[in-house]
């Protein structure tokens, strides 16, 4: 074997070794890693849309939650819940938020419980006023915290919840709202131009706060399948 051929062989072997070792990191898709199956819809969920939090996680969904799709295609039947479109007719909301898409659904179950699903999508920060800011401005008193939802195929998705009360004029008992929400991004880049969707559930209080959050969790589990990379708080 002559010297040039040996050099060529050595170089080829070294390149092959490097490609074997580092290739999967450089291009996971090419090497078949961390890529969802073609029929899986993977999004990134987080508690905040402006700043990344350590609760950010990838989630596999049963429906499309990105702005390249019509959000009205999210199923109207979700587990035991049956929904109907209730278009947002408040012009102030539309003028203030200027959302690209605004889907508002009222879901009911056989027990007579109701659950509002709001999907608000946009490609700027304007449509995304945190719900607590709006409740505050409207005179509601609320407490706020977070909770996780364990998904059927593994992993957890985190959201913020609000337990809000307001005594309306002429009423003797305060009205209760329990709100649970998080944000969905089409990818980890979280570029505003790629679009963001606020996923928000609102209901009355059924039993205790924890009972009500259990209802919200059950609803979410019907729309999201797994969160492959979730776990303890991630380091940013």
């Amino acid at each position: 074997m002559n010297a040039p051929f040996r050099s060529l062989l050595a170089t080829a072997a070294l390149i092959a070794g490097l490609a074997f070792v580092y290739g999967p990191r450089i291009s996971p898709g090419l090497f078949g890693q961390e890529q969802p199956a073609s029929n899986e819809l993977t999004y990134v969920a987080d508690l905040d849309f402006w700043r990344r939090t350590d609760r950010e996680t990838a989630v596999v969904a049963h429906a499309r939650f990105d702005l390249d799709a019509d959000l009205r295609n999210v199923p109207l039947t979700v587990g035991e819940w049956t929904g109907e479109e209730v278009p947002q007719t408040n012009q102030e909301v539309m003028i203030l938020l200027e959302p690209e898409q605004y889907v508002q659904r009222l879901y009911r179950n056989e027990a007579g419980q109701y659950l509002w699903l709001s999907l608000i999508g946009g490609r700027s920060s304007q449509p995304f006023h945190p719900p607590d800011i709006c409740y505050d401005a409207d005179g509601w008193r609320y407490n706020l915290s977070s909770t996780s939802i364990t998904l059927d195929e593994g992993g957890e998705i985190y959201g913020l919840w609000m337990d809000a009360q307001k005594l309306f004029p002429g009423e003797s008992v305060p009205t209760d709202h329990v709100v649970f929400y998080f944000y969905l991004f089409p990818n980890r880049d979280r570029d505003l131009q790629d679009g963001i969707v606020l996923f928000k559930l609102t209901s009355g209080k059924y039993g205790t706060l924890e009972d009500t959050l259990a209802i919200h969790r059950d609803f979410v589990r019907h729309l999201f399948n797994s969160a492959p990379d979730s776990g303890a708080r991630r380091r940013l």
Partner: protein
Amino acid sequence: MNSLCKPRNDSRPHMRQPIVTVILVALMIATAACSSPTGADSEPVAAPPPPAAGSCALGLDAATPAEEAIRAVLLAEGELVVQQDIDALMQLWSEDSRVVDAKNTPDDEADDQYWDGKDAIRHRYVRTVFPGAPDQVQPSDLVISLDGEQAVVLATTHIGSEISPDGDRWELVRIDGCWLLRSLTYNLEARP
């Protein structure tokens, strides 16, 4: 001896050397990659130690006197609010922490408003506190009460031109020698 064989025999050690070297290099790279926590097929490795928290995140060690460490944590909280450094801020808080708005009715807890847990506290900073862009947040008149691994601090807070005499009550806890914020109750000053 076959003349064709002799040079071949002579050349074998020279031919093997680069190949062996390449294989060794490739094995070393592969071995290094396997020990990397980010390797796709890597073995599970021990998680890195958690980042320093509370007073220890400020470069103060466990031997720092309690009052000095507590003052440093409260001063850092104010400075980090001004800097809007949310990640550094959240390192000051314990996992079971909460913020309470006493609504200027210190004797009536029924109207209190809670942000429970670090996610909620983080949300409050980012969505409620930072938009106000305070250029000065300075706790003063600190009255520190120590009780073993816990401390309560009454403070007057200056947020810009707003002064709240004895309006804040901080609770801190010492964990692994580091003082962390456990709760803040504000708007404790009663309305005239």
